[in-house]
């Protein structure tokens, strides 16, 4: 059901639906944010990491004597030294182990081999050149296909029982039913495509300041962390420190996008060094370190098949995946799902059968597999189905919009059980697509596309009608490293009616200090300016799994609404006491209780708050506060339709966006301005991946894309302009009907751009170009010429 949301509160109160300006901005626009690298502690030492120059090799010897003798160097740490403390290896978020500092082999270029701790960061880096490592070079495996060839060198020879380079195998759906659907098909359309390796590349790199008190053993770990509570627990497990002695503080975060979900070797080494030396140790990555060693994303080789009827209905989907995991299987994803939530790949379409198989291979590349602005591989899933659907429409001789409208799940089918087991909460896909078509004048562009272009340019129109699955968990199905995917909110109302809200999630730019205060404003009528939102300090916030996979609003946002409602119920009793009325006789309006039928006889929430500490009835506990742990009944399913028009120059293969509309439905929008900011950013990242942004390797495993000269991210000059639209289909199970939006546009838009390019080239026989759709690839496809990747 599409609705529009009318704010229930006045603008100054700033409840749900108001585009109030962000509270956090005042410090950022004055240079007064406090990011990790801004932290200076007395006596603080600095760490630099020596990394492997080769992709695969056995370590024969490490000589650190010259580095140790350098003025200002306090210690040089090697894997052997860590091994003496049981810290040479650490668990990954997917149940594998990862080297902290290499002891036996290096398995990718950029892998951590040794670390220098010095009094000055320049000295620490200088001293790296005084460490001499002898390697016996081994063949580098640079693709998953190569990894699975018979006789391929074993990358994980240290791993017990590991006899090949397979990291995992996994499947979902119903094979027999899918085979049956394909047997009935009039037509089968297939697509093979590689979703290339990418990197979230937040503008702030990763870092740590580890401060272990030598007298008490208490560790304060300042960390660029999207998940500070989970990291505290993992630190306790990895380092064997008592959890009450670990305080993780995630300060202002300069963008995360999934990059700041894993625990990286540098964090562990710095913490161990602080513990052993008794002084604070800071480590901040350089950009190159960030790009070559931390949290890559995607790298899925995908094969998809759609079974179709001649009249344009989808009967079934087969998908098989070969994923390039790098040297360690370190996907940040729920335990039960080995290829993330890729099995959402049936997308927005209603058909009976699907079967998905996935296999991951170890290669000599950095580990990661983080969900880059994405809910656990939903981006790859959305890309595959949206590319397949377009090709299917053309093979059937249908318009791709018409084909989608014919196959969409219909509004009355929700809640909808997908063939791979997801229960879609709500949706109205037809309305979103029709709205996008109207906004961009789809029919008009189709006509213009047929007209001869004065300069010989080619026009392409691409659609993507994505459905996401976000907001993990429920706890029955979703955990990471055993930690159930709940989140929590603690809300305290002070005597003067101001409030503090403490959360287990952590903003990295999403604007939590504003939007979560708006939820409190909505539920309690306390102006959003009066609600301080605190996140990131594990000593002062309740437990939570953190901010990624668009889960803050679906989970912590729900927890906030629930705890605020619980507090309102207590406030009602206090108000009844103050008004000498029965609680049942009180009415609520934003910020005030009044006696039913006597609107003048009332008390404000501020008066009630004061009474909670000064004039509470006998038998009632003092105070006005609460904490709630929210376990979502289901995931949420944001969706939308994006349409992009591109113009291709056949002379050189370049393409540009002429127009783009994005109609998003993320349920109820807490702050429309912030939602649109998220969408615009995501559309730009989607464009980046479609157009320019990827990480690749040469045949020796050297990373190409190790800096912003080679790893191209768009500037204001390249970034397209967008026009945004919305529909509102509330989530029926979320307390405020919100679904989450931070990743929708990154998930949905890449297929729209690529579909537009292929749309322009279809009549020339082009069926696919892998991302990034670089000019030489377009030119090669147009001219039937094989080009370098």
């Amino acid at each position, binding site marked *: 059901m599409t609705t529009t949301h009318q704010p229930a509160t006045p603008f100054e109160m700033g409840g749900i639906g108001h585009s109030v300006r962000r509270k956090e901005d005042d410090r950022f626009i*004055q240079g007064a944010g406090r990011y990790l690298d801004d932290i200076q502690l007395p006596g603080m030492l600095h760490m630099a990491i020596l990394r492997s120059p080769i992709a695969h090799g056995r370590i024969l010897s490490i000589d650190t004597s010259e580095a140790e003798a350098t003025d200002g160097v306090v210690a040089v740490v090697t894997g052997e030294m860590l091994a003496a403390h049981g810290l040479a290896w650490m668990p990954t978020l997917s149940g594998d182990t990862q080297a902290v500092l290499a002891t036996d082999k290096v398995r990718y270029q950029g892998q951590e081999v040794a670390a220098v701790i010095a009094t000055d960061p320049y000295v620490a880096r200088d001293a790296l050149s005084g460490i001499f490592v002898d390697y016996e070079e081994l063949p580098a495996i640079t693709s998953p296909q190569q990894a699975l060839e018979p006789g391929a060198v074993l990358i994980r020879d240290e791993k017990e029982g590991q006899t090949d380079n397979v990291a995992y195998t996994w499947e979902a759906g119903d094979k027999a039913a899918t085979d049956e659907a394909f047997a009935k098909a009039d037509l089968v359309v297939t697509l093979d495509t590689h979703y290339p390796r990418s990197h979230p590349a937040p*503008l702030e790199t990763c870092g740590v300041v580890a401060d272990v008190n030598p007298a008490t053993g208490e560790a304060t770990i300042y960390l660029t962390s999207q998940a500070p509570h989970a990291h505290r627990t993992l630190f306790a497990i990895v380092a064997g420190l008592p959890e009450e002695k670990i305080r993780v503080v995630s300060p202002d975060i300069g963008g995360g996008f999934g990059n700041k979900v894993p625990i990286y070797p540098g964090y562990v080494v710095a913490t161990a060094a602080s513990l052993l030396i008794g002084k604070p140790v800071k480590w901040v990555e350089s950009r190159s370190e960030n790009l070559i060693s931390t949290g890559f994303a995607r790298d899925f080789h995908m094969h998809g098949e759609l079974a179709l009827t001649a009249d344009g209905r989808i009967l079934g989907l087969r998908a098989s995946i070969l994923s390039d995991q790098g040297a360690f299987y370190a996907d940040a994803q729920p335990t039960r799902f080995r290829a993330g939530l890729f099995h959402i790949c049936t997308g927005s379409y209603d058909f009976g059968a699907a079967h998905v198989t996935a296999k991951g291979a170890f290669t000599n590349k950095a580990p990661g597999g983080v969900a880059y602005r994405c809910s656990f591989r939903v981006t790859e899933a959305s890309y595959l189905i949206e590319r397949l659907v377009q090709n299917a429409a053309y093979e059937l001789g249908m318009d791709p919009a018409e084909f989608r409208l014919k196959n969409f799940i219909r509004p009355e089918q929700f809640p909808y059980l997908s063939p791979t087991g997801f229960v879609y909460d709500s949706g109205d896909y037809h309305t979103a697509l029709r709205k996008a078509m109207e906004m961009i004048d789809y029919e008009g562009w189709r006509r213009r596309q047929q007209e001869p272009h004065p300069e010989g340019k080619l026009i392409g129109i691409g659609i993507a009608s994505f459905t996401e699955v976000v907001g993990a968990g429920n706890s029955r199905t979703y955990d990471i490293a055993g930690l159930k995917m709940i989140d929590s909110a603690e809300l305290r109302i002070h005597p003067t009616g101001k409030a503090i809200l403490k959360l287990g999630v952590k903003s990295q730019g999403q604007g939590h200090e504003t939007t979560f205060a708006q939820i409190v404003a909505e539920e309690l009528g306390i102006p959003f300016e009066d609600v301080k939102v605190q996140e990131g300090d594990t000593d002062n916030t309740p437990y939570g799994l953190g901010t990624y996979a668009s889960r803050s609003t679906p989970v912590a946002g729900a927890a906030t609404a629930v705890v605020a409602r619980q507090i309102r119920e207590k406030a009602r009793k206090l108000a009844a006491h103050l008004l000498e009325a029965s609680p049942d006789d009180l009415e609520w309006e934003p910020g005030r209780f009044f006696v039913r039928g006597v609107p003048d006889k009332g008390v404000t929430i501020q008066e009630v708050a004061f009474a909670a500490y000064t004039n509470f009835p006998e038998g009632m506990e003092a105070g006005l506060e609460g904490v709630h742990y929210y376990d979502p009944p289901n995931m949420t399913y944001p969706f939308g339709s994006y349409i992009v028009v591109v113009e291709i120059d056949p002379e050189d293969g370049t393409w540009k966006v002429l127009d783009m509309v994005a109609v998003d439905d993320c349920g109820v929008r807490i702050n429309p301005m912030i939602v649109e900011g998220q969408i615009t950013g995501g559309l730009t990242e989607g464009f980046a991946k479609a157009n320019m942004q990827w990480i690749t390797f040469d045949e020796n495993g050297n990373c190409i894309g190790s800096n912003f000269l080679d790893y191209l991210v768009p500037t204001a000059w390249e970034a397209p302009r967008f026009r945004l639209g919305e529909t509102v289909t509330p989530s029926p199970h979320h307390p405020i009907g919100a679904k989450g939006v931070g990743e929708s546009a990154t998930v949905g838009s890449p297929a729209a751009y690529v579909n537009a390019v292929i749309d322009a080239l279809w009549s020339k026989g082009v069926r696919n170009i892998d991302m990034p759709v670089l000019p030489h690839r377009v030119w090669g496809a147009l001219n039937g010429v094989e080009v370098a990747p």
Partner: protein
Amino acid sequence: MEVEVTVNGVAYRRDTEPRRLLVDFIRTELGLTGTHIGCDTTSCGACTVLFDGVPVKSCTMFAVQADGHELTTVEGLRRNGELSPVQAAFKEHHGLQCGFCTPGMMLVATALLSSNPDPTEEDVRWALSGNICRCTGYTNIVEAIRSAAATMHETAGVES
């Protein structure tokens, strides 16, 4: 080596290593941490400061090169207790999310508006093309800067 530099109108004299990068000097020796470091290759612009009014990337200059010059960092944008029009517009138009690129963006914008008080969208985008933002998609940054230009016109009109 001794360096004398005026930053945000305050004169500093410091003894620093010849190889110390200007950005490290500003952040560590002067304690002005609003200037950020985002890359190693002069690509991202997070470290942008104004050098005698001209935007430079302070990760690609030595501190000693600033000897005798005037710098403006983000901490110097606020004047007489008031946000500059560029700062105010960034907040009003949601021109920032994580805030890490924001100081560099605002300094480029400030320099642009001082030389081109009425920039077109193309002018703004070209001026920003040495600065990377990973959050916003730039739309609101461009809007903020054009709005700041309009505000500065109005203010100038009132004053004259």
